[in-house]
């Protein structure tokens, strides 16, 4: 038996979480370092996975398969395709930055009970989320995926509800009420989505008798498994609902602004750049892979919803007064692009969408983490409380600008390539939707540049005048992300090489070929 690389990649952060949680209350710093080292080791493992993955090889690689719960037809099956590899790498890459950025976020204000250890808990929860997210990217068994898809809500919930920004305009009591409101909203939305998916998972078992992605796909291809059209559609809707809540897609998005607003910046990054990706990833792998016909049937509606997400998110972002809420609505707009790319059913669209997942992770992380640094200095999330920051903290303002420009998909930065691909991919099949979606880019320029203008330029506000510039720790967090954004903006080939073969296979799952305009013209 070969070395279970994928299992180890997920098990390491899981064990690290347990170890971090077990660090004694007084040894706070040790816990932080332990978490950081574990996350870096996980990154090393993820890079090994990336290197060992052969883009031209079999669809699912580094596979592992063990019996688990035979009674439910469940196997412990792992395997990664190009899309999974890219997202595992993204997750493992972002976690060390999240940990570093949140270095002081969970230092206890007052010493509560002798056994109250918020710092250890914070970092342990982050590692637990990493383990579950990595496993859900790797699972090729629907049930196994479902378990981690649901279970990751619990650590996320504690991260949102238990830790918030230090300073708050209305005092700690209100802040804690709002935080628990946001956490409960997050959990209930996702739990309801997940439970509806559970009904569909059970339905899938009744129809197929097992949960293996490959076996079901094989059985459907050879015709030994027949699914009635209505059954397939119901099951598809059950799955899609859960993923659309997680992604989030309009009109199921309302938990995201609350959750991102109330949580600390690193946790907000964890939500939008890492956890939400599981939703879009699962649409590609499970919705299209298991229910190709139903996916095609639902495409028009989903494209319209995605389009609404793009425009609605962007419009609301323009009107926000709270910086984190603004980024949240911008993310909703971007998730609209990703979902549009997936359901455009063209290889450009899907490559673009996958690339977008990676790039959105990087750009949002860069922007949000800088926003977090900014907020921690001033103690306010309101745009109106800032002004003229670039004069007192030029490096902070500069990194903020680059993060913002990446968010608005400036050519030369990574998100541009993916947004372009998504739009081209959509346009070839659905020209009208492609054209309207372009409006989203214009609005993005508006909300990013206005945000920059209001906070960074203009006269220096008195409360901002003493603001220190980025510290070394903060630079270590931001600089690599910006370097990557620029590198992938100029040279996206390393990612597209890995992603493209997997996208081709997904396209063949749904029996779709790219439209060929000249052939249709010849008809």
């Amino acid at each position: 038996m070969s070395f279970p690389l994928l299992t180890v990649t997920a098990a390491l952060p899981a064990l690290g979480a347990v170890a971090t949680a077990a660090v004694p209350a007084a040894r706070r710093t040790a816990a932080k370092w332990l978490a950081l080292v574990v996350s870096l080791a996980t990154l090393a493992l993820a890079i090994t996975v990336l290197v060992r993955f052969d883009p031209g090889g079999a669809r699912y690689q580094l596979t592992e398969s063990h019996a688990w719960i035979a009674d439910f037809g469940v196997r412990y099956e792992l395997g990664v395709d190009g899309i999974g590899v890219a997202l595992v790498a993204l997750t493992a890459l972002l976690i060390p930055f999240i940990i570093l950025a949140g270095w002081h976020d969970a230092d206890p204000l007052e010493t509560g009970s002798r056994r109250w250890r918020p710092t250890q808990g914070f970092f342990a929860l982050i590692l637990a989320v990493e383990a579950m997210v990595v496993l859900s990217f790797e699972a090729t068994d629907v049930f196994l995926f479902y378990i981690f898809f649901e279970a990751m809500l619990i650590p996320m919930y504690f991260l949102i509800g238990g830790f918030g920004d230090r300073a708050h305009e209305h005092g700690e009591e209100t802040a804690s009420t709002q935080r628990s409101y946001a956490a409960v909203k997050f959990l209930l939305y996702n739990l309801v989505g997940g439970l509806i998916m559970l009904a569909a998972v059970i339905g899938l078992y009744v129809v197929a008798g097992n949960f293996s992605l490959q076996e079901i796909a094989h059985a459907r291809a050879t015709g030994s498994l027949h699914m009635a059209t209505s059954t397939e559609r119901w099951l598809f809707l059950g799955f899609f609902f859960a993923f659309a809540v997680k992604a989030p897609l309009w009109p199921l998005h309302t938990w995201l602004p609350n959750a991102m607003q109330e949580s600390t910046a690193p946790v907000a990054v964890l939500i939008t750049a890492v956890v939400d990706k599981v939703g879009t990833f699962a649409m590609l792998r499970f919705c299209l892979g298991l229910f190709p016909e139903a996916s095609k049937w639902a495409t028009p509606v989903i494209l319209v919803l995605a389009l609404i997400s793009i425009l609605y998110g962007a419009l609301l972002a323009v009107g926000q007064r709270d910086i984190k809420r603004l980024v949240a609505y911008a993310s909703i707009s971007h998730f609209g692009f990703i979902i549009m790319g997936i359901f455009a059913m063209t290889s450009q669209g899907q490559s673009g969408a996958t690339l977008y997942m990676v790039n959105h992770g990087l750009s949002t992380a860069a922007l949000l983490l800088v926003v977090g640094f900014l907020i921690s200095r001033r103690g306010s999330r309101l745009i109106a409380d800032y002004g003229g920051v670039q004069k007192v903290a030029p490096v902070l303002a500069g990194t903020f600008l680059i993060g913002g420009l990446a968010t608005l998909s400036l050519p030369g930065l990574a998100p541009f390539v993916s947004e372009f691909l998504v739009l081209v991919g959509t346009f070839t099949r659905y020209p009208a939707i492609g054209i309207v979606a372009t409006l989203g880019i214009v609005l993005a320029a508006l909300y990013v540049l206005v945000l920059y203008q209001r906070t960074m330029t203009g006269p220096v506000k008195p409360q901002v005048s003493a603001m220190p510039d980025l510290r070394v720790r903060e630079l270590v967090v931001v600089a690599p992300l910006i370097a990557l954004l620029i590198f992938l903006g100029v040279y996206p080939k390393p990612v597209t090489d890995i992603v493209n073969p997997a996208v081709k296979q997904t396209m063949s799952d749904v029996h779709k070929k790219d439209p060929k305009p000249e052939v249709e013209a010849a008809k």
Partner: protein
Amino acid sequence: MSTAAVHSLWTNAADPIAKIGAPKIEYGQLSPTLIVLGAALVGVLVEAFVPRKSRYYAQVFVSVVALCAAFAAVVALASDGYGTTKAHIAAMGAIAVDGPSLFLQGTILLAALVGLFTFAERRLDPAAHGNRVDSFAAQAASVPGSDSEQAAVKAGFTTTEVFPLLLFAVGGMLVFPSANDLLTLFVALEVFSLPLYLLCALARRKRLMSQEAAVKYFLLGAFASAFTLFGIALLYGYAGSVSYGRIAQVVDGTVTGIDPALADTMGSDALLLIGGAMIVMGLLFKVGAVPFHMWTPDVYQGAPTPVTGFMAAATKVAAFGALLRLLYVVLPGMRWDWRPVMWAVAIITMLGGAIVAITQTDIKRLLAYSSIAHAGFILAGVIATSKDGVSSVLFYLAGYSFVTIGAFAVVTLVRDAGGEATHLSKWAGLGRRSPLVAAVFAVFLLAFAGIPLTSGFAGKFAVFKAAADGGAAPLVVIGVISSAIAAFFYIRVIVLMFFSEPKPEGPTVAVPSPLTMVAIGVGVAVTLVLGVAPQYFLDLASQAGVFVR
């Protein structure tokens, strides 16, 4: 009844008495029940003859040994193959020794053992006049607030009778799911109910509430028993027998030889339908299904918390066992009649329990309504009418009972000056003050909510899968919706514990003796093991999924 029929009754009864031989009783196969009931009698003798000071230790010793021995006997029977190949009907047709019986008896015995540990806990209440006391009244007969009560407390009395009462209840519960005729069923029902009524009245604190709970439980329980008994009479009229196998034959129409005394009424569908419905009603009462659930919140709240935990777990196991056997062995032939009714009951139970629980402000009442919702989930598995349905229900019950006992054991720990602090507002900020206790309780709540990697999820998946396989897909969807509603109030408690600021005059968490720690530890361990690696237990449940007829 016609005169001819009466005549034949006479002549039958007048048959030579010499024909009646000695009954053949398979003592070995009944040993689990016999051990427990025997130990209960020993417990009564201990009460009578052992000096007061050493009674507690003697009682705990007798009870633990008896439960362990009975469990060993169950395991021995199961490994002998009585659960599968050698399954048969023992004791002249009164008791079925088969897979479901043994599985449920094992579950009841383990749950009772863990429950016993919480009964025996004596470190939580502050010592009264230098004597360690448990959760039970100093002297049950003394009027609350009277001088005699104070005298009893001062003398350091404790109600050690709870241990034999527990054993009697367990004995009845062991027979209940394995009863193979209606009279045995009824006797078992009474044998386990009466001690429970008494136990409910024995709380050391808030005695009036406890006695009120006991009276409510007793009155409503007596009604339910009466219904059951009436139903049994009607079914006897229908089938001319109280034996499960015989009634099933009459239902199927494969019966040979009709008793002339009953020729008039036999095979009358009205008797069957009304009688069957009445018996099922009695069982649904014990299970706590809507609309027979009214007693649950009051009794759960008023009873001493260790009793509540034991009752919530073990009664449910026993009653669902009996319900399964009744529906699968006696009435499978008329499942087209009872399935729609059970559908309706399952739906209102799931939804009713989950919705009403949202408004609760007392942790014990909240858990009571949660147990109602869970009864609904289990009913979904019962309705599947398949082997999978049986084994999923068995698995669910095993997982559920340990979560329940563990959760109520945690409730006993959170205390203020007035005893247990069960009002939810007092639990605010518990996670800050005692992270470990709060985390353990959160694990139990997540298991109740059915979050993956806990036993609650595996169980819920099993019953819903069986239900969907059995063609009850709408039931699964409603189950999923009520799970979502239920998740809301479980999460509310977690929010309260972890995200709310602690109140300055909030309760303290008592440090228990190893007994309660074991009870809680077993609860957590079973919850996680059944959640992460359920295969072995699912195998066990699916081997045990066949009723002997």
